[in-house]
């Protein structure tokens, strides 16, 4: 158990190092950072050398990388080129919004997806099952950015019942978290349905039925637990999708989170900000994946050995 966690932690750190190297090299490949900072006109050779020294660019590349890493551990990637603010402040300011959105989305996906999936399996081939399937199939095929815009049009502009931007109150969460959650919800529904069907067909569930247990008891006490294991795995895998989605959703709903920080950084060629946001996302992504893996071991004792 501890060995397993240890290995996963080391793998996670390794992946982070690879990503940091990639991010570090990415900014060096796109040109000289010193030239980006200097005004095009009125910059002498002396100015250039001074800025270079100031940024530590005169040192060998490996030393630069180590300095970059040291800063990265502290969330310090220098100043934002645009407004000269420390990247760490920007990160701390934006992070809560993204975490809240991601949590709301994941919670919604699980709270709606699991019961719907189970109900589809228990009431197989009912109208309910078919409607659920349609909902799931659409959720996997409709592009998130478009669904978001259509929902804004419907609920924000035509019906005027929900706010479509900002994050003041709980009602601000409804549309963004649904858009973020839909495809994951669809996956959870389909997976929950198929694994539930499989479990309902197993010997121990049949035995429980023969024993005379009521249907509800069979589903709750015996089937559900085992049907949940694949869902847990899937939720872990979906984290990447959640992060992908967050960038799109934040953009459409003007959500002041990490995703938009990242996107704006790229569009404005604001390298310190991009580095900071990418590294922070990667860190949280790997951390959550690790936690899911550990939960997985708890949920399924079979893989402990």
């Amino acid at each position, binding site marked *: 158990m501890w060995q397993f966690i240890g290995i996963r932690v080391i793998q996670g750190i390794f992946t982070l190092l690879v990503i940091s190297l990639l991010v570090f090299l990415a900014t060096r490949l796109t040109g000289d950072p010193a030239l980006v900072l200097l005004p095009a006109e009125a910059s002498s050779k002396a100015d250039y050398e001074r800025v270079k020294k100031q940024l530590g660019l005169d040192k060998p590349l490996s030393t630069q990388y180590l300095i970059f890493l040291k800063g990265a551990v502290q969330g310090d990637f220098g100043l934002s080129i645009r407004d000269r603010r420390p990247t760490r402040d920007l990160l701390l300011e934006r992070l809560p919004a993204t975490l809240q959105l991601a949590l709301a989305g994941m919670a919604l996906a699980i709270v709606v997806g699991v019961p719907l999936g189970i109900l589809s399996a228990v009431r197989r081939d009912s109208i309910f099952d078919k409607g659920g399937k349609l909902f799931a199939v659409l959720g996997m095929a409709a592009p998130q950015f478009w669904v978001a815009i259509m929902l804004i049009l419907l609920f924000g502009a035509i019906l005027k019942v929900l706010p479509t931007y900002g994050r003041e109150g709980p009602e601000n969460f409804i549309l963004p978290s649904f858009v973020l959650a839909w495809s994951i919800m669809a996956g959870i529904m389909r997976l929950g349905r198929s694994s539930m069907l499989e479990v309902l067909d197993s010997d121990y569930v049949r035995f429980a039925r023969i024993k005379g247990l009521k249907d509800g008891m069979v589903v709750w006490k015996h089937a559900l637990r085992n049907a949940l294991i694949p869902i847990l795995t899937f939720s872990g895998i979906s984290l990447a999708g959640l992060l992908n989605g967050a960038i799109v959703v934040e953009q459409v709903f003007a959500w002041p989170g990490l995703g938009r920080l990242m996107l704006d950084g*790229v569009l404005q060629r604001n390298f310190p900000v991009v580095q900071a946001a990418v590294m922070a996302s990667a860190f949280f992504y790997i951390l959550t994946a690790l936690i899911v893996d550990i939960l997985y071991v708890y949920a399924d004792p079979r893989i402990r050995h």
Partner: protein
Amino acid sequence: MATTDLVLETSQPQLSRRQRLAEKRLPWIPIVVLLVLLVCTAFAHWLAPHDPTSLNIINSKLAPFESMEHPLGTDVLGRDMLSRLIYGARTTAQISVTALALGAIIGTVVGLVSGYWGGWSDAILMRITDAALGFPTILLALVVVVIMDPGPTAIILAVLLTVWARFARMIRGDVLTVKGYDFVTLARITGVKSPVILWRHIFPNVANTLMVITSLMVGQIILLEAALSFLGLGLSPGAPAWGIMVAEGQEVILDVWWLSLFPGVAITVVVLAFNFFGDWLRDYLDPKLRRAR
């Protein structure tokens, strides 16, 4: 999943040609959608009534069916929506097919090598695969776009970087099974060289898996390409791409709703068609795979 009845290839010579087709349960609607996409891609310049990029301010913001000259209306700059949609199909197809083909080739080679030789090369290749699989695509794409200039190549590279790993992982799994079969052992004993074994004996046996993953990946690739275009990370603004068209419509959604609606519907329908077709192909070629999903 769709149905529980497996499509078994039982030999029943008394069946007519038509009955045999019915037996296969071909997904007609998806096939028709894909054919339309194909035709639009190949003949966009003949089919499109107008130039997709020519501006015409006088005829801007025409509603659908308002004028027969522009059946689906025009956008803010007076560009014909139908033409832009048709050319958008071409853009989508070009990017997706290139990324998919490259991803399939690289992934298959990595999967074959990794599965067949095993050992160190396998360990290293699979760690890299894990890293690529476990990393959010758009994040990778952002890094790619920072390094390169935005454009079709950047989108293709960004998609490619995540796609190949899925192929590698699945193909490797298949190779591990096929490797253990007698005909491979026999070939090895008789001194057939490894590349020949891989190409002549192992590859034909993983080709089914390759086809199934390919068809199941298309939908995801189209969605990814559209999302990148929408975010402004790929093609130049104004290019006829469905993702860009949705983004253009977003700014004026209250005024001219059809600008975002149509390209979004197009993406959804095409992705749906590919997903259904992929599901069908998987069930048809290999009923075993159906359980694996």
